[in-house]
């Protein structure tokens, strides 16, 4: 890995590779030969995904270790395991996070607390630790998932959106702070993507497929970009949405 973090053949600790966007992105990385180590809560699921990734070309073995974004005390141990398995990781990808329908979050404050904890606190603590680790070894790449929902509040999902907005600001700052020390940071902002996470929600225009998102993200990782909207059209959609006067947002029913 060079200092700019632009080469393929990375050694990636991956949080959230078993499902949805994470599954698609991990496959993409596996197929081009990146070494992967999976981190997450469900051992059985990670074991299955590890087999899938190995069959698709990831250097074997694809190992895994427990990591719960809601339990930061376990992060160092999990990262040590990844470092051991890949003889020092040079990238972290975090696609894992929580999602719930807005109405459920409004009604259930325990659930909301868990969402805030995982998507904001846990993810930031993890990325911050990894940034230090990578900087100490000369650089690397951190890729985490914000959301277009974090670009502008909507009455229908500002709780989830707030976690992603906070995370986006953090990632933006992390990039500024660590770039000189060789750490690249990529904040992915997916629009609506058809995955298990969004199942049952009404599908808006410009909805994307996970495979296309994975391709966009892998490209952005290689290009060393700090932010990527995917599908790409969401960049322009959000440009407009961010510029909408408040009066219009107030009237809009979304």
């Amino acid at each position: 890995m060079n200092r700019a973090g632009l080469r393929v053949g990375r050694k990636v600790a991956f949080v959230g590779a078993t499902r949805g966007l994470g599954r698609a992105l991990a496959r993409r990385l596996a197929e081009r030969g990146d070494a992967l180590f999976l981190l997450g809560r469900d051992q059985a699921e990670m074991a299955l995904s590890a087999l899938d990734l190995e069959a698709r070309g990831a250097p074997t073995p694809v190992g895994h270790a427990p990591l719960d974004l809601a339990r930061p005390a376990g992060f160092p141990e999990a990262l040590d395991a990844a470092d051991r398995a890949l003889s020092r990781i040079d990238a972290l990808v975090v696609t894992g996070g929580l999602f719930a329908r807005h109405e459920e979050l409004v009604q259930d404050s325990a659930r909301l607390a868990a969402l805030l904890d995982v998507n904001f606190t846990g993810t930031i603590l993890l990325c911050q630790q990894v940034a230090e680790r990578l900087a100490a070894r000369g650089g690397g790449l951190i890729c985490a998932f914000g959301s277009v929902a974090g670009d502008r509040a909507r009455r229908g999902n500002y709780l989830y959106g707030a976690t992603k907005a906070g995370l986006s600001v953090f990632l933006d700052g992390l990039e500024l702070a660590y770039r000189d020390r060789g750490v690249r940071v990529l904040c992915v902002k997916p629009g609506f993507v058809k995955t298990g996470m969004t199942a049952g929600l009404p599908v808006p225009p410009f909805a994307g497929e996970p495979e296309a998102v994975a391709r966009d993200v892998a490209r952005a990782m290689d290009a060393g970009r700090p932010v990527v909207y995917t599908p790409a059209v969401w960049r322009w959609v959000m440009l407009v949405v961010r510029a909408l006067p408040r009066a219009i947002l107030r009237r809009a029913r979304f």
Partner: protein
Amino acid sequence: MSGGTPAGAARPLEPVAGWGRYPVGRGRVERPERLALPDGAFPVVPRGFGRAYGDAAIPSAPGGLVLESTRADRIRAFDSTTGRLTCEAGLSLAEILRVFVPRGWFPAVTPGTKFVTVGACVACDVHGKNHHRDGSFGNFVERIELLTADGSVVECGPTRERELFLATVGGMGLTGLIVEVTLRLRRIESPWIVLETLGVDSLDAMLDGLKRSAVDWPYTVGWIDGLARGRDVGRGILMRGRHATAVEAGDRRPRGPLPLRVPIDAPEWLLNPLLMRWFNRLYAWRHGAALKRRLVSYDAFFYPLDSVAEWNRLYGRRGFLQYQCVVPRAAGSAPVATLLDRLGAAGAASFLAVIKDCGPASDAYLSFPMEGTTLALDLPHRGPVTEALIHDLNATVIAHGGRVYLAKDAVTRPADFARMMPRLAEWQAVRQRWDPRRRFRSAQSVRLFGDPA
């Protein structure tokens, strides 16, 4: 670590139809990333990409659970010395091709679209252009893991729980939810196909050409002119292919087909001119060199229609029925000629029909192919007239000991189907044993097997 399905969210009903867009049902569609039978889910219809044309993957009644497998698509194991692949049932042939063709492996049997799941290939016991040589999909399946109606996991295969295996291959998903499959892929030297096309001017010439080609060619198929009358019935082009060797392929790199999409439902008058254009081409071939040989990509050879996304919309809002039957070889070419003639006379026929010779039947109880000639064509759905035509065609097929293909069917009557399938009772007995309450049922099983709606 991601959030998964929002709990407690009641799924709205979605319209659910087959590839022919007729009939249309309504169901609650779940697309889990790992296949499981939700507690209390009853009844359930398994579904892949919805490429069965008729009512095979439509819920038995509005509100039934449709378990779509396409996101349960992980590979469990691949042995690069034997080509043995174990995967979740939702893995598509498209994905198998994408991952394994560059490594020199190809599905041993493939239908005319790659947008099908492995589970559906098993459930329909699909066949391809190599049926005369290799038989159907089930021949290459070594193991199936099923979630049966009582929720237990049961493994079956050619030598384990054999009756359940024979009932599941071709069993249209009605014996249990197929969650995992072990199958054998075929070694190939290149992604290219050596293709020969030749014009033939009669049905007998077509059947004879298929028979002769079958000796040396693993893949054969004919396209015939559904408009031809009298002496000309059966004229068309014969295509035969084989995987190119590394030497033949040289260093050609396959190019993906141009992505085309049918953006809207076509008006019903559109199709004729489009297909007429095809026909002009076909005749150009016929009147050109008698035999042409070239190298084509596997996509162009096996999946010509896959390059036009949603081509089924060409048939307009009312959809279409695809009719595919097989008549035993012993009956000679006469029944095939009769069928083609009826279609022409009814004026309802598509302009293109696909003809293919099948090899010996499989042991699977409801498997479609049998030694003989299979014919497939699209019939734009024009209401009761079209359905009456199909019953009429079925009568001819039954009279000669043939049958129709459930993956295509939407209208065949139960009594007719029973006459087509000599081993139906055996299949029903196995199904009765594994699913006495008919937890697994579909609009098709209600229509054909008398399941409660």
